[in-house]
């Protein structure tokens, strides 16, 4: 077989791509939190996102 390392690398890429599509992987990484209290429905304004404690308001400024 010609270029065994390259062929293996390419085959791994294809396998990873198929796996990514099968599992619905995307580049986005949202903060995943377990066991959110059900009271969030009753008082949504009181809920504090966990990522805010790291990133401030979360928004970034734009405009020329």
């Amino acid at each position, binding site marked *: 077989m010609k270029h065994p390392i390259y062929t293996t690398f390419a085959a791994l*890429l*294809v396998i990873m791509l198929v796996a990514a599509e099968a599992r619905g992987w*995307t580049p986005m990484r949202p903060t*995943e939190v*377990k066991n959110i209290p059900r009271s969030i429905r009753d008082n949504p*304004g009181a809920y504090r996102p966990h990522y805010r404690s790291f990133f401030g308001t979360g*928004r970034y*400024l734009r405009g020329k």
Partner: protein
Amino acid sequence: MSAPAVSSLSCPQCGAAITLRTLDQAQSVVCSSCGSILDARDPNLHVLQAFEAKQKFTPQIPLGTRGALKGEKWEVVGYQVRRITIDGTSYYWEEYLLFNPYKGFRYLTQYDGHWNDVQIVKAAPAESINGRQPFVTLYGETFKHFQTATAYTEFVLGEFPWQVRVGDHAVVRDFVAPPRMLSEESTPDETTWSLGTYTPAAQIWKAFSLPGKPLRPRGVYANQPDEYRPVAGSMAKRYLLFAAIIVGLGVLRFVTAARETVFATDSSFFRPGAPADSLAFVTPTFTVKGRTTDLEVTTEAQVDNGWAYFDYALVNEQTGTTYEFGREVSYYYGRDSDGAWSEGSRRDRALLPSVPAGQYFLRVLPEAQVPTDFLEYRIVVRRDVPIVTPYLVCLALLAIPPIFWALRAWGMESARWKESDYAPDDDDDDE
């Protein structure tokens, strides 16, 4: 080849013994002791030229060495060093004359560790010109002109089938089609063509059972085979094969993706001084069906020179697992000295990875800074939405090795032609 037939004579200049290996084929012989060039056809070995070389050279393959090269036995009978001068710099190379009584003569040349196995060709190649670069065709193979220079004989040793002299010169034109090189040597009296084949030094060393290791080749020689191009070529073919697989998978994915809308809502934002937290709300529950896949949350807001920010929490009602993320929609536009400009978009798309089936709702906290304090927006949630990025990333990663080898091949070709008459910014290198 049987035992060498030799004839022993004495040098009329210094009295040292002279050995003739090619017998009646020799026209001149060099005394290895005093360096005088003698007429081999004269029984008294008339001196053609006393030693005139400016320096002495020692052949890497001693005269008299015998070996089997490419299945035929040869003996080294002559050695000469030749020179060309380009832009004031002199370049020297060695030529070894090999003899086989049944096959005649052939040559080995060596420059900077690069060896060529050279044979005289009887047929004259057909010459044409393409642009400013001539080329010749021999036996159906096309050779590109590489360099024209005047070669001077600097040092000779052994015997030769012509009357050799130090200071002899000939105009040499080299044409290349790696691993072969066709060379034309012209003197006022005659023109000869020879065909060289690039030969690894290790093969020469093995053929003549030479001690030690050969010099490591330096630089890229005119007809040195491009070792990278075949690798780049076959790797490119492999790339195309896998690229086709990836494109095929991508097409399949885009054709079969469900793109199912699981939730959509239109809402508006109005806050004349309302506390931010009071604007948070939760959506009705919606169902995400099917296999674990990505979930697209599209936010479309009619912002004009303003921004809206949405704190999202996608909550799985059964497990309590929550995916938190924030998205900004901002759109600015205007006109300045450079003309009209715009920045941002009124639409944002977030792709949540690997969201399993279940009952979900969104907790949304909008914030905005818009001129009117009133903003309409729309949120749409879809599952199983294909994205092109992973396919492009795979294609790009896959292309790195072939590109690497192609660049090496390109670099080798550049280095080769840099030494030619066709080097960039180099019109005429000839002496």
